């Protein structure tokens, strides 16, 4: 019995029997669960369109500050004998802008250029890196705001006052402190990260973690300039002694000018100016018009991509973490734990969640982070129910029983044997949750309960119908279309994923 010979004999057959399959003929090598699911998703045109749109949004989320900004890229000052050139656009990028730009460039390259490790693994490392950078950035920014508002812990403030004392270089010591603190935070996060397994040997992660830490820390410590929305560059340009080169969309999102009022798509600021103008203006039209305060809609929409992406991801992550934890507790322990926690789930489910969210958004502080948190905290129920149901099934299955029987610790049984088998429906559901979160953000912003401190599609949409009954079609159409396409994309990806992993539907034929 020589399998190689049989292979050569039957390879040309157009059909195979069970024996051939046992001999390994007619089988394609398994791609693994997620590989298989991915190849199913790729075959759906809808899902691919969705992925493409999400990529576009992500691109703008990273690069919006250098695509749409009121700051000129190059600014030439000809007042003196020699022309002084400066680069305001880059000067006024915030730390987060800079980090995202770095990620926007490095990320795709990192995933697309083959580098030994498999693409999925590299994607995992990228996500890990993003997470690490986000933690470092938010901790450093938190610390910075505490210092500047004087509400930091005593020892930090003492240190701060000590380093502030030398007057020669007022920025030097402050930067040094921030440098040191972000370095230590980066170090701590990196250490933590090294011990979270996603590649086989922990030491292979060290250089990667250090690299990401160094990049994020460099970005953050280099950029402590306060955010500047806009500057009356045009006023200076009118004197003829200055000259600026602008980005593609030469307006910052919140750069409003009440004198200019609302303009329809295609109009340019120049067309509205009086003859004796003190402003030299960019002669480019507002492609998508402006809102009532004369703020460019396109620029706002581009900058809002970041909010849209982050609100979906952050709130869904919160929901998944809460849901998986509670669901796992219910499903694994059962009994009274299940009874008590399931009552909580039922209470949450017995009220229209959207209404709960509207009330929460209405009474709690109007803040982007609060909004992410409340959306996350009020949408974990489906995840919890999925995990609970899966765990109830898994708990009695032989491999879990035997894992328990050989005395594996609870941690190992839960995270190694049960969670990977039960998490699939939750991950598919996450796609729908992201879509729902974006939808909810739009609704809350539309109702006027949103943060309003940064551009948001929902906020723009809400300006489309005023109390006076007027209707501004471009404010209704473009932001709404963006929300719709994003929600549709996530829904399509979710549908494709669900169909890909649901063996019941695959089997079903009429």
């Amino acid at each position, binding site marked *: 019995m*020589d399998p190689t010979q049989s292979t050569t*004999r039957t390879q040309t057959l*157009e*059909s195979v*029997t*069970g024996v051939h399959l046992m001999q390994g003929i*007619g089988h394609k090598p398994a791609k693994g669960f997620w590989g298989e699911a991915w190849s199913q998703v790729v075959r759906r045109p809808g899902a691919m369109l969705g992925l493409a749109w999400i990529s576009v949004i992500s691109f703008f989320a990273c690069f919006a500050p250098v695509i749409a900004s009121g700051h000129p890229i190059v600014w030439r000052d000809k007042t003196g004998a020699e022309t002084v050139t400066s680069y305001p656009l880059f000067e006024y990028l915030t730390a987060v802008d800079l980090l995202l730009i770095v990620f926007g460039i490095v990320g795709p390259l990192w995933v697309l250029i083959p580098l030994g490790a498999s693409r999925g693994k590299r994607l995992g490392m990228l996500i890990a890196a993003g997470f690490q950078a986000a933690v470092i950035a938010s901790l450093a920014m938190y610390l910075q705001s505490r210092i500047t508002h004087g509400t930091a812990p005593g020892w930090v403030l003492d240190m701060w006052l000590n380093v502030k004392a030398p007057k020669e270089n007022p920025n030097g010591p402050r930067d040094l402190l921030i440098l040191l603190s972000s370095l230590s935070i980066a170090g701590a996060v990196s250490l933590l990260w090294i011990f979270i397994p996603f590649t086989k040997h922990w030491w292979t992660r060290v250089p990667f973690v250090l690299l990401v830490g160094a990049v994020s820390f460099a970005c953050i410590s280099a950029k402590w300039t306060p955010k500047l929305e806009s500057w009356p560059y045009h006023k200076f340009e009118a004197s003829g002694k200055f000259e600026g080169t602008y980005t593609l969309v030469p307006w910052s999102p919140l750069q409003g000018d009440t004198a200019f009022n609302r303009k329809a798509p295609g109009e340019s600021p120049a067309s509205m100016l009086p003859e004796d103008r003190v402003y030299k203006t960019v002669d480019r039209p507002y492609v998508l018009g402006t809102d009532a305060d004369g703020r460019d809609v396109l620029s706002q929409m581009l900058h809002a991509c970041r909010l849209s992406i982050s609100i979906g991801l952050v709130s869904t992550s919160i929901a998944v973490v809460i849901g998986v934890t509670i669901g796992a507790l219910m499903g694994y322990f059962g009994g009274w734990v299940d009874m008590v926690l399931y009552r909580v789930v039922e209470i949450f489910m017995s009220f229209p969640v959207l209404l709960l969210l509207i009330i929460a958004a209405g009474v709690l502080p109007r803040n982007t982070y609060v909004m992410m948190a409340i959306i996350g905290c009020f949408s974990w129920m489906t995840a919890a129910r999925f995990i609970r149901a899966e765990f109830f099934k898994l708990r009695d299955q032989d491999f879990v029983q035997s894992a328990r029987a050989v005395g594996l610790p609870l941690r190992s049984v839960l995270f190694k044997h049960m969670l990977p088998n039960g998490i699939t429906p939750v991950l598919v559901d996450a796609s729908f949750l992201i879509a729902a979160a974006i939808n909810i953000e739009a609704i809350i912003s539309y109702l006027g309960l949103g943060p309003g401190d940064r551009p948001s599609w929902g906020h723009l949409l809400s300006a489309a119908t005023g109390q006076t009954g007027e209707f501004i079609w471009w404010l209704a159409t473009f932001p709404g279309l963006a929300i719709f396409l994003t929600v549709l994309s996530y829904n399509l990806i979710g549908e494709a994923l669900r169909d890909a992993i649901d063996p019941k539907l695959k089997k079903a*034929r009429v």
Partner: protein
Amino acid sequence: MPATTPSTAKTSTRTSPSASKLDESVPLLRVADLAVSFDNGKGPRIQAVDGVRMTIYPRQTLAVVGESGCGKSVTAMSTMQLVPRPPGRFDRGAAFFNHNGKSVNLLTLSEREMQQFRGSEIAMIFQEPMTSLNPVYTIGDQILEAILLHQNVKLDEAIEIAVRAMDDVGIPDPRSRLSDYPHQFSGGMRQRVMIAMALACDPVLLLADEPTTALDVTIQAQILELLRKLQNDRGMGMMLITHDLGVVAENADVVCVMYAGRVVEYGTVFEVFKHPLHPYTRGLFASIPKMHEHRRRLVTINQIVDNLDEFKKLPGASDGVRPWWPWHDPPKDIRPKPGPAGDYYLQEVSKDHWVGVWRTAAVSDHESPPPDLDYRIADDPDAPSKKK
């Protein structure tokens, strides 16, 4: 093929067809060179059944034996067109059913014509009694549905027929249990309900697809006993699909052993049990643990079928006749016909015994008839041991 509608021929008066009405010398069902394959989504199609031949006579039990996935159920379901198409497809062959003296190819009937045969002429019982009944309808609803479909009777007559059918299969207090739901029955009782449902319309052919596999041993015996009794009373032909050789020995007249979608051995139950010729059949028998033997390890089927000596035991082995075995390379002098299963041939080795062999020079020169055994143990005076 002209559309034939059995329901017009069948009237309400025909409540107990005696065996004499059926011509016992004509096979009820003749499966000829059946090949069924399934779409695998990607990659080549899966050939589930390939060149299967068999016959079933009235009052005869044909046992189809083989491991899971060898094509037993697909064969049975194909004859009722229950194979979902697509992904399934009939590649070749025919299943001729003797309907009132006319031979009807079941595979080419339209869905509407086929519905007239299903349930009324050919009935099938399935392996899983727990899930084969619709949970939201009462037992009565489900039995009556079949009766009202196929027999031209009023509702109260139909209820009478259903009650009688349930009584026949030994369900106590049938009239009151008609309004019970399946979940109120035990597994054995549900299988009885399935049988009652299958037999309510007096089919002439019963396809029993592992009717006892999901049941415990005592219930198994009861159900098989019941089936045998009903078969004798009504003169039905029965295809009994199983992988339990004990069940075969107890119940079958003719045995058909299948492997990888092909028939490897076909013969009367005594022939096959006494003189198994194909190594696979021999392996099957050898792998049954024996009561009085003490062995450290049981003989596995692979030990038998890998043993080249086993292959030489076939009559004519010296002339180059070799049992067909997909795990071996075909002999040098193979003369395959074009198309699938062209390398395989079901060879008659004695009057009541067929074996699947490679189509070598030795066999292709001696065309043998397809398997066809009009044999019943009950009629056989020479049967080595009469059953009970």
